[in-house]
């Protein structure tokens, strides 16, 4: 059924259909609409979940952890400072191998106080063991949220999944949304290490130096295995519902001489820049990174690369640019743009390509000559 929805409402709609048994959340701009809408679904009994209105994000994640360890489906949503406040618990969720699904509406970190889009919030969580996907349309926010539950709960994964959408530019934009008849797309959850009162077991015990590294390795092994699970899940989604995704979304890349790499809405707007550049005779393409963890193998052989980071690692560089350079073992043109909702248009993106200087870093709006 086709309707119009914001990115936030699309996530809430997907959660309603995935039917988590427990939702624990704390509101924060620009995510609030997700948990407000879910609370409405629970109040109107359209959704039979237990909704726990906790007093903080740390508690939201702790409540999801407590619920998830009993072997049930759980969901929460947050943004920016809320995500950072959870940080201790996000590590716990991954370490305890709990398939919690969380929507994070990407927002900058203050001060200076700012409520607009930036990816630095989620990127600060990149080493926790969570899988992370970044979406670019209202439809994709809905589709990715549905798929997140199946991927997280797959027995070859059993890790939490974070669905990331850009604050305001996607969370609050209204676009067409086609909802699906879910059927048995998300199988019922079976957590092998769920609490069973018939068979009492210890949780969170001390793991000594002779064991701890094995737990770390198990997380890594599962993240590697998740590639197969993501591909299978997305293939089945495409088969059932007709919409195809991938670890990356490649647009006119095959014969491209130069490729723009970005995430989220900027990655989608880059496609317009590509069309315009092609009309000028520049063989450009765009590659939108969807899954940040597991980090995909990028097909960039023989192509120049312009990376747009809506994030920054101080004293180091754009997080995507540095990740890509380490993978392809050569320099890119690193653009830092869109921080705190900074306006970046497809014309600006085309300029990044026209004026690219491989090996350099360019802060949009700071450096003078692009």
């Amino acid at each position, binding site marked *: 059924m086709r309707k119009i929805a914001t990115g936030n409402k699309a996530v809430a709609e997907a959660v309603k259909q995935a039917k988590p048994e427990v939702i624990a959340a704390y509101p924060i701009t620009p995510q609030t609409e997700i948990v407000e809408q879910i609370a409405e679904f629970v109040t109107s009994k359209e959704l039979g979940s237990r909704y726990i209105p906790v007093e903080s994000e740390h508690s939201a994640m702790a409540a999801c952890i407590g619920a998830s360890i009993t072997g049930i489906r759980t969901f929460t949503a947050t943004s920016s400072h809320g995500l950072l406040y959870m940080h201790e618990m996000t590590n716990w969720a991954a370490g305890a191998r709990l398939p919690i699904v969380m929507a994070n509406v990407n927002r900058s970190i203050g001060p200076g106080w700012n409520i607009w889009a930036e990816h630095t919030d989620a990127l600060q969580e990149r080493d926790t063991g969570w899988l992370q996907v970044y979406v670019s349309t209202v439809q994709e926010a809905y589709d990715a949220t549905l798929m997140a539950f199946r991927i997280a709960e797959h027995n070859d994964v059993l890790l939490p999944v974070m669905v990331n959408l850009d604050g*305001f*530019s996607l969370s*609050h*934009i209204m*676009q067409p949304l086609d909802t699906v008849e879910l059927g048995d797309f998300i199988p019922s959850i079976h957590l092998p290490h769920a609490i069973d009162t018939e068979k009492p077991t210890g949780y969170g015990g001390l793991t000594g130096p002779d064991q701890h590294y094995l737990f770390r390795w198990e997380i890594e092994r599962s993240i590697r295995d998740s590639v197969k699970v993501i591909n299978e899940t997305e293939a089945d989604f495409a088969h059932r519902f007709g919409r195809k995704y991938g670890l990356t979304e490649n647009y006119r890349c095959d014969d491209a001489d130069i490729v723009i790499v970005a995430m989220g*809405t900027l990655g989608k707007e880059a496609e317009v820049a590509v069309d315009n550049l092609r009309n000028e005779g520049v063989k450009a393409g765009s590659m939108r990174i969807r899954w940040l963890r597991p980090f995909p193998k990028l097909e960039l052989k023989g192509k120049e690369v312009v990376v747009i980071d809506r994030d920054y690692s101080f004293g180091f560089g754009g997080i995507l640019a540095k990740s890509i350079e380490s993978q392809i073992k050569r320099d890119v043109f690193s653009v830092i743009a869109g921080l705190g909702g900074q306006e970046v*248009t497809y014309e600006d993106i085309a300029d990044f390509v026209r004026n690219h200087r491989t090996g350099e870093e360019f802060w949009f709006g700071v450096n003078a000559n692009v």
Partner: protein
Amino acid sequence: MYEIRIHSRGGQGGVTAARLLALAAIHDGKYATACPFYGAERRGAPIVSFVRIDDKPIKVYSQIKKPDMVVVLDASVMDVVDVMQGIKKGGRVFVNSASKKEFDGVSSYHVDLTGIALKEKLVVAGSPILNTPVLGALAKMGIISADSAKKAIREMFSDERNVKAAEAAYQEMIA
């Protein structure tokens, strides 16, 4: 792609107007996005929202710099904001006003939406509702079909006076 910028004041329903317009365009079988610009809004402050309509999926998220059309729900914002900024040559402007406003190089349209809302007693918290009648005016201008405009209004509002107000705006406007 047809790009529309809506000027209003916080609390006047400019965001809902954008949503209704996009929804009606979707009912017409088109692609549409409605995108409020979120700044530090407060009730009464001038705000803008954007609507894009196209025959293919819309990939642009940045603000509209060169609108094909400008909609002014509150003529008083024209005292403080250059509503015509960037408008394309040959573009169109619609102003909620009982009298025609002249602008260089664009076609100007007007209907007294406030009068229509007051006549239909469409008033919430002391403010006349402008976002449903404006859809009638935009249908008359051919941006959306009249049927889709009514369908969109009925999907969002159960009070049939909203549809009546849109019909009145449709009839009163000289296109």
